[in-house]
């Protein structure tokens, strides 16, 4: 059962990413990406991390991609752009990407993966860690978010006409 779910979700995910690459319309690319993120959320759930799954869907699919779509709509390009013209950069990057793929697979092969016990991780466990061991990063992150917030507003604000 779980395996079937896994293969379904992973196929859809990869398919969505491929669709995002192939699509010429940015809005379609964004929507494909939303699909991919939702699948990822499902995969997180399969891995026994329900909290993270939900966070992924809410924040990534729900907030970040919405931001993307807002900006796409604001930029309002009439037509999409065809893919890259310069052939050799694509070729080189494909080659390198494949090489990287192989290397990483090899690396992963050598990784020691222990037996994964059953059961998912409850939010309680994550919360415990978050507010004790990782308290400091947590607080810093909050400052980071404020900075991003203020920064985004200041950056985009139209200058007052003198």
């Amino acid at each position, binding site marked *: 059962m779980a395996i079937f779910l896994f293969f379904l979700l992973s196929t859809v995910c990869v398919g969505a990413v491929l669709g995002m690459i192939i699509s010429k319309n940015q809005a379609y690319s964004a929507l494909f990406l939303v699909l991919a993120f939702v699948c990822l959320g499902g995969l997180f759930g399969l891995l026994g991390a329900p909290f993270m799954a939900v966070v992924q869907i809410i924040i990534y699919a729900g907030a970040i991609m919405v931001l993307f779509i807002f900006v796409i709509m604001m930029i309002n390009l009439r037509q999409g752009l065809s893919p890259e013209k310069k052939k050799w*950069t694509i070729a*080189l*990057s494909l080659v*390198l*990407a494949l*090489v*990287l793929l192989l*290397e990483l697979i*090899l*690396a992963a092969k050598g990784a020691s993966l222990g037996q994964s016990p059953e059961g998912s991780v409850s939010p309680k466990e994550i919360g415990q860690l978050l507010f004790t061991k990782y308290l400091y990063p947590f607080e810093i992150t909050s400052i980071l978010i404020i900075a991003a917030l203020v920064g985004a507003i200041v950056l985009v604000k139209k200058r007052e006409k003198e």
Partner: protein
Amino acid sequence: MKDIFWLIPFVPALSTLVLVLFGRKLPKKVVSWQACLSVFISFIIALISFLSLLKTPPESYPIVKNLFTWISAGSFSANLSFQFDPLSAVMALVVTGVGFLIHVYSVGYMAHDKSYTRYFTYLNLFTFAMLILVLASNMILMFVGWEGVGLCSYLLIGFWFEKHSAANAGKKAFIVNRIGDAGFILGILFIFLAVGSSEFTAVNQAISGGLIARGGATLIAILLFIGATGKSAQLPLYIWLPDAMEGPTPVSALIHAATMVTAGVYMVARMNLLFTYSGTAGNIVALVGALTAIFAATMALTQNDIKRVLAYSTISQLGYMFIGCGVGAYAAGIFHLYTHAFFKSLLFLAAGSVMHALSGELDMRKMGGLRKYLPWTYPTFLIGAIAIAGVPFLSGFFSKDAILTQAYAQGQYFVWALGLMGAILTAFYMFRLIFLTFHGKERLEPEAKKHLHESPKVMTIPLAILAFFSIVAGYVGLPVVLGKKANLFQNFLEPVIPPASEGHLSMGLEWTLILISVAVALLGIYIAYVFYLKRPDIPHNIVRRIPGVYKLLYNKYYVDEAYNAVIVNPLVKGSEVIYENFDLAVIDGALNGSASATGFFGRALSALQTGYVKDYVLVFLLGAVIIVGILLF
């Protein structure tokens, strides 16, 4: 008391230092007093040391004062140490004594010069270097002084450096000197190889101990003598001395008459054991000296510049000194050095006085009849001329005669004959100078005649003092015919300079030789008298008859032109070729090449900076691939 002699060089050194640091701020009067006083103090110290030397027994010669070890590199070492013995005493007294008089004279001569302080700085520096040279106890320190006087000669000859001819003359002097110094340095190095030290005492011990082969000794002696030909203006390196007359006249008197040019003679005398041991070297020295004496005397015959006559005369007289040293009569050579210092510097200073009176004129064709106007300059000049001509009872006679007699006694008849011929020429050209300048018709420029005046006392008193010594200085070296004891000079120098080995002539022969010298001198004077006073048309007729010879002599045998064509120009051309083909092409090329290569690589690399983020990320990707690859394997 005898140990204070090492202070002799340092008094003028101190004065030089003060003048270098503060000279500009000091008033002229202070500079004059300080410069002259420092040399005078040196003279007093030299005198005291000399007197105390007389009291010490000869076995303790030389008295050495080692200040400190200057260079110590493995087996090579040289000390800053001075020595005092009769030879050093004579040289030190001459340098400081005559030097002092010339300093005083300069106060008057250079009074209107705008670089007054610089002049005295250089003059004091020169005195310091010369004293180091004569008081050094090893060859390395002597060489320091040797180079020092060469430097001061360059500085002082080119004193009026705005004049092209003066600057060139200074350069010429230094470069020609340098050529001689190459031989000198080689000589010092060989001595070092042979003896292991350059201290004179050690070298003399090695020679008398037979540690040096005769051939080696000859080689060293010749090399050292090459240095002497450069410094003392002998063939073939004499060419700088006539040009050196571009410098102020007191400089010519001090450096190119009394002291610096005599350094070569001093050096040969100091190394007398070496030269005697290698008989060949001595012969070469005597021959070169004799040839130079004649050669220079012939050139003096035709010069119209009053200082040039004296310059060639100096070269000629130095030749005599080398004759003396070469035949083994080193004491006679030094004796002539000593008397020559007096009358030659007197002649130069008096010539300077004449030039000063005529507002700088030095062409004898524009002089004449000056003896009425210069009551001090004329008599002193005359005394100097009589002395150099070798007229009896003045100093020049005693010293020149000593040399010629010894040359004959040693069997060097050719040298003796050349010396005798030189003596006639000497008398002739000196009195030609006297008659053209002071007697006969006045051929003065009207402007000069208007300002004609005798020189101030500060200039005439040194003249008088030098004239006095030109007369009496010879009496310390009376000829041996009058008894062995009579030659005080030679006896004084005996512990340092053994008298010439064979060299005993019969009394009759000695008196004959003396009479021949006297006759020759008087003959020269008489001929000059006839040529320039009685019948002035004779010189013109002679020139008309043998214009070729006259031109040859007047143009100094075209030696300078020959040197220029054969040596100087090829070297200059050669260095230009090397400059273009090596310096510019290779060295600059390499430099510029590496610069342009760097630029090239820079431009190539900057092609990577396209400004496109995608390309940069491509590079990131590449880097990531490499790093993961490395981590994997």
